[in-house]
């Protein structure tokens, strides 16, 4: 069988050329290519690692930001609450003060009115007394214009006196 009988010439050339291309490819192709591939893979790995690190740092930063924000919010809420309490206490105080003041004013006013009323009554009494006097005078003048009338009056008055 010619087919399965290895030919010497071909083996010879195979060893020569395979040896040469193995040497040349190893030196000028595989070593630089494998070196570059390794470098590139390491480069990619480093970039991935640093990206991961940056992402972690970002996450840490974000969580600290959130913490600060929530703290600020809590503080703001506390401040608002405090302010509201202060406001309410001020309003209440003002209300009580105003009520008291109003009460005091009312009392003063009432006293004043009373005083004025008493003064007015006294005045009125005086006026009424004066008016009565005048009226009595006028009536007396009227009554005593004629002799007749004077006599009757005296008479009446005398009768009263007699009775007493």
């Amino acid at each position, binding site marked *: 069988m*010619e*087919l*399965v*009988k*290895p*030919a*010497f*010439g*071909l*083996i*010879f*050339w*195979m*060893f020569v*050329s*395979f040896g*040469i*291309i*193995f040497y*040349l*490819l*190893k030196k*000028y*192709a*595989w*070593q*630089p*290519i*494998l070196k*570059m*591939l390794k*470098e*590139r893979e390491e*480069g990619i790995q480093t970039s991935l690692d640093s990206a991961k690190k940056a992402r972690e740092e970002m996450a840490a930063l974000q969580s600290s930001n959130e913490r600060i924000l929530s703290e600020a919010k809590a503080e703001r809420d506390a401040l608002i609450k405090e302010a509201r309490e202060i406001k309410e206490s001020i309003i209440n105080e003002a209300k009580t003060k105003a009520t008291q003041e109003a009460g005091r004013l009312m009392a003063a006013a009432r006293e004043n009115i009373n005083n004025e009323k008493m003064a007015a009554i006294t005045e009125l009494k005086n006026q009424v007394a004066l008016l009565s006097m005048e009226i009595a005078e006028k009536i007396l003048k009227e009554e005593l214009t004629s002799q007749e009338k004077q006599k009757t009056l005296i008479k009446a008055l005398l009768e009263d006196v007699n009775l007493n």
Partner: protein
Amino acid sequence: MGRFLLAILTILGLSSSALKAEEKDSKEKKFNPGELIMEHIGDAHEWHLWGEGDGATAIPLPVIVYSRDRGLDVFSSVHFEHGRKTYKGYKLDHSRIVAVNEMGTIDAIDASVNPELTDGIWDISISKNVVTLLFSCLFMLWLFISVARTYVANANGAPKGKQSFVEPLITFIRDEVAKPSIGPKYEKYVPYLLTVFFFILVNNLLGLIPIFPGGTNLTGNIAITMSLALVTLIVITLTANGGYWRHIFAMPGIPVGILVILTPIEILGFLLRPFVLMIRLFANITAGHIIALSFYSLIFIFGEMNVGLGYGVSVLSIAFTVFMGFLELLVAFLQAYVFVLLTAMYFGAAIEDHHAHVTDQHQTL
């Protein structure tokens, strides 16, 4: 340079007048598919292009013969006139060079073979397979050295051009073949595995191209697969550690009585591994070529019966050959992969740390 080219052309003797011959004889011959297929998958001292018999057009290739008695002879195979003539005391016998008693250019049929001299011939001619071999080697050198240049020039950049075709294969061999099969010390074997893989792949693919310089059955030639397997055997022998040899010649923990039986089997296994590598590649690639050629031969077998039938069958034949072509494309990659995978596994076995392995076994026991 010009003189050098002239010398090559003279050796090749590429003159159309010498190539042309009468076409009368070939017309009378019956089509013989077996002969055609065997001629195609075998080696030859000329590159057959077209035509048949004496009317064939072929590129003559240089013949280099050394014999202890006659010394070194270098001449073009054109002098053999497709095997019809002897030259310098040699003639072609079914594309094999044999020594004849008569010197000078005479008719090959008249010349008597000298068996004693024939046995002492060292034929290192640049045959058809050698041309393909050299071509594929030059192609690989060009491809990978230019790719390596791109890597150096385009350091840390994204791969482009030839680089992006070659890179996945290189990383595949490194990461999927060498790393898991060999273990932590894989790096020093990667260049060899890459060279073998691309050598087989390039030549497998070249074999699928039907026109010059492709179409030769190089990776389906037993000499080539034997050389590759031998190199693998040599590398294993040179790099194997003590544990590997101990496991072959004296398996630890086995009684002497059984060792008498086991050791020959282990030695046989050691030699059988490269032998299997040789046979698998040879058989797969040769079978592919035979199938493709058989389908084409069908056309001419039927064509001889009836021209119309030949045309009819050609449709089917071409359809099948296209299908087989795709299959062979897969086989080209698969066989290159299988060859390096097994080679890597044998390397891995040869440098495996047997000490740790043995203690592991004891622990599991």
